């Protein structure tokens, strides 16, 4: 089973995000960069599938040179090799562009299965996985919390509003992972040592047959970023007893806030 994991490096979710002076990007200096949490599930699931069905796990990413750290972490978890489409730091792509870059690489890479996180927690686009599948003309199943592979087919439990739907499709497939699918392993010390020797293939946009000028022109373009209106602390409801507080808050919610 040849498995490719699509991986993005993102700011850790505990990071405070500040807008840069250009107004369209974020200040990246003090940020801790990590593997997108949903992609971590994807790496873990790929490793489990490899353990059950043999094969290899490749990590594919688009990003600046610092993305190598995230790829190394995935290699330390147990993935076999990495591919980085190395783009200048500060280049901003929409989801469609990223999907186009990834699919250009995947068209030259043999795979039975592609696994990606359901979204990246920076752009929150939910777009790259399904769009990549479309460019490759293969089926996709998103938001998967459980999968079973047998006889060249995969059965996926996909989370939907209010429950789960079970879908099945022949391989090759792309599926995206949802929280709950697994508990990602930590990289072991021997794993970290081994990862240093594992290959990471660095490619440029030109190497993969795309035109940097076209790639640099996203159809969906950020024109300004702002921080949402800061919520201010409001009123502490005081009272002699829990009962008094409960009566007071319900009265306020009903009469003043008018939300009851």
């Amino acid at each position, binding site marked *: 089973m040849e498995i490719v994991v699509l991986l993005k490096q993102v*700011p850790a*979710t*505990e990071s405070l*995000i500040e807008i840069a002076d250009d107004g369209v990007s*974020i200040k990246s200096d003090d940020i801790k960069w990590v593997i997108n*949490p*949903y992609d971590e599930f994807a790496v873990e699931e790929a490793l489990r599938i490899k353990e059950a069905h043999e094969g290899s796990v490749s990590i594919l990413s688009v990003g600046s040179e610092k993305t190598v750290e995230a790829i190394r972490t995935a290699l330390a978890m147990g993935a076999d090799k990495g591919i980085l489409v190395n783009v200048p730091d500060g280049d901003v792509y929409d*989801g*469609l562009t990223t999907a186009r870059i990834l699919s250009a690489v995947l068209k030259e890479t043999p795979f039975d299965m592609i696994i990606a996180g359901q979204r990246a*927690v*920076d752009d*929150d686009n*939910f*777009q*790259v*996985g*399904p*769009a990549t*599948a*479309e*460019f490759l003309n293969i*089926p*996709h*199943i*998103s*938001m998967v919390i459980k999968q079973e592979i047998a006889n060249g087919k995969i059965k996926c439990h996909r989370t*939907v*509003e*209010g*429950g*789960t*739907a079970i879908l*099945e*499709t*022949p391989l090759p497939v792309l599926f995206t992972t949802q*929280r*709950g699918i697994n508990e990602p392993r930590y990289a072991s010390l021997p794993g970290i040592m081994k990862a240093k020797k594992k290959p990471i293939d660095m490619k440029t946009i030109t190497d993969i047959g795309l035109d940097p000028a076209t790639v640099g022109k996203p*159809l*969906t*373009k950020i*024109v300004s*970023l*702002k*921080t*949402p209106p800061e*919520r*201010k*602390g*409001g*009123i*502490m*409801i005081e009272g002699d007893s829990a009962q008094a*507080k*409960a*009566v007071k*808050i319900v009265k*306020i*919610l009903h009469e003043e806030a008018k*939300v*009851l």
Partner: protein
Amino acid sequence: MAQNVLAIAEQIEGVFRKVTFEALSEGRRIADHLGCELNALVLGDNIENISKELEQFGADRIIVAENSALFEYLPDTYGNVIADVINKETPDVVIMGASTQGRDIAARLSARLNAPLAMDCVAIRFEDNDLMATRYMYGGKILADVVLSGKPQILAIRPNAMTIASAAGTGSIEKFEVNTGTPLVKFIEKHLDTGKVELTEADTVVSGGRGMGGPDFAVIEELAQVLKGAVGASRSAVDEGWRSSSDQVGQTGKVVSPNLYFACGISGAIQHLAGMSSSNVIVAINKDPEAPIFSKADYGLQGDLFEIVPLITEEIRKLKG
């Protein structure tokens, strides 16, 4: 083909999802701005009778794609049929709800049609002649204005963000000749808790965190029930295994913007705040007077949630008579 806006409706077993009415209402506003028709597309099996309802939200032509193969949502069948409709109608704007289904369709269509997409929009406006969409990034920490170039412009709108407005549309029904192509993905079965209110669409969300101390969320569930709301959970409550991951509110869970949000026993980590800060009114209940959540809540109650929450439930029950 003249300019037009296409709204994609979403129905589950003959009932439209609330976000469908939001998408139509917003689609109507866009169509009015452009001075063109708003058309609605309904997919499913045996749905012609419910489709007429959409004229109340401003739909001019209601395109009905009816086929037994469309009874359940599948990315390839729905993708093929919607792409066919778009190729025939050549809309300027395609709008739909950013549900699990809507996001799936929007993403796949953007690639098939090489079309710009704004996912999870919370506001849409025109500046000069550019369509500008506002959407959250970084799980709610940042608001971005994005401009879309090319056609059709695909907008997936976040549930609960746009207002529903009734508007009279022409409401003529048209059948679309369905060709589902040769789908690879097969539907096997589904398990839905139909009594459960969907977190992202709920008017009220009651969430519990580490302060719950265990998997017993009965007090939270009762408050949610009396308000016909949904139950949410913080990441720590999910990590502890007390609640399913589908209940998680926050940057790595769901982003919610209900009218009323109760945070019970939730300290208020930055990634949880990101997921609920756009709620209209926030009430926090926490034992710790220093909990960061109090600096973000409209109303704070310091004390034992297991004592206070049932009393609040009781008071609301009295109020609702």
